[in-house]
């Protein structure tokens, strides 16, 4: 990869990813009153996070079974209002322990 081509590509990536984030964040200043848009925006975060988690979570660790157990542990802890850090840590630990017993 020659440097000139690398930097042109990099510039396109940096500028487009920066502007797509910063422009809406910096320029939307007033509170949105429209009920439909407000509802849409309030659902977006949970929809995005869900779409990123399911089904990707099953294929992130080596074992699908360990991932499934980890998922259930995470849901259970979340229902008990555990903190983000706790859920992340215990889910990882669960996968680690499960995979000690599972040969993939």
């Amino acid at each position, binding site marked *: 990869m020659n440097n000139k081509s690398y930097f042109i590509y990099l510039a396109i990536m940096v500028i487009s990813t920066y502007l797509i984030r910063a422009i809406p964040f910096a320029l939307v200043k007033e509170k949105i009153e429209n009920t439909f848009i407000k509802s*849409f925006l309030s659902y977006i975060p949970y929809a995005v*996070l869900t779409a990123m988690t399911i089904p990707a979570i099953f294929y992130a660790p080596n074992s699908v079974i360990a991932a499934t157990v980890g998922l259930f542990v995470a849901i259970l802890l979340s229902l008990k209002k555990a903190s983000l850090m706790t859920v992340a840590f215990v889910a990882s630990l669960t*996968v680690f322990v499960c995979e000690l017993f599972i040969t993939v």
Partner: protein
Amino acid sequence: MSKQNFIRGIKSGVPVGLGYLSVSFTFGIMAISLGFKIWQTVLISMLTVTSAGQFSGINTMLVSGQYIEMLISQLTINIRYSFMSISLSQKVSKQFSGIWRWIFGAMITDEIFGIAISEKEITKSFFAGLCIMPYIGWSFGTFLGALLGSVLPERLMSALSIAIYGMFIAIVVPEMEKGISVIIVVLLAALLSTAFKFLPMLKNVPGGISISICAIASSLIGATFFPIKDSD
């Protein structure tokens, strides 16, 4: 700047930073295997901080002259950040304005968004703190991946890979207890996203784009059938 909020932000960013370490480590390994130099690889991570965008980006870079393709794919994969930015803009405190939004706007990622949005009001101090560990994790993980390749124990990498999703679950599940409408939107998003993974044709759609489609479609359905009448 409130020191208390800043520290709280740093702490909230720890699990994200750890999760990023493993994801960006994978990115580092991949970029080196495609022929990028270490500094080129790390620079991409430090300047863009977008997982799906970067993975797709380095593959586009391999062929010379695909500048328009690069622009279009980056915009499509990252369009979800615009929606997140607008959502965040509705919850930030008054002090968090002007130049600060232009600076910290660059750090809006899926995970940072997920944590920030669960705040009642997003202060500048909290958001600044929140960005630190993820940024270090993302940059340093890329460097380690590029440098060390596959030295970390495979089992550890595997276990760490679920950390990010654990956090997402911890954000989404408590919200589902608030009402049937959120449950339906979440189930719809999960169903659509699974369809994009397995169904013929749909499974050829790149990940970043399919996530946007799933999120927009299920939120539109939610907003149509379950408008939120009067939220705070």
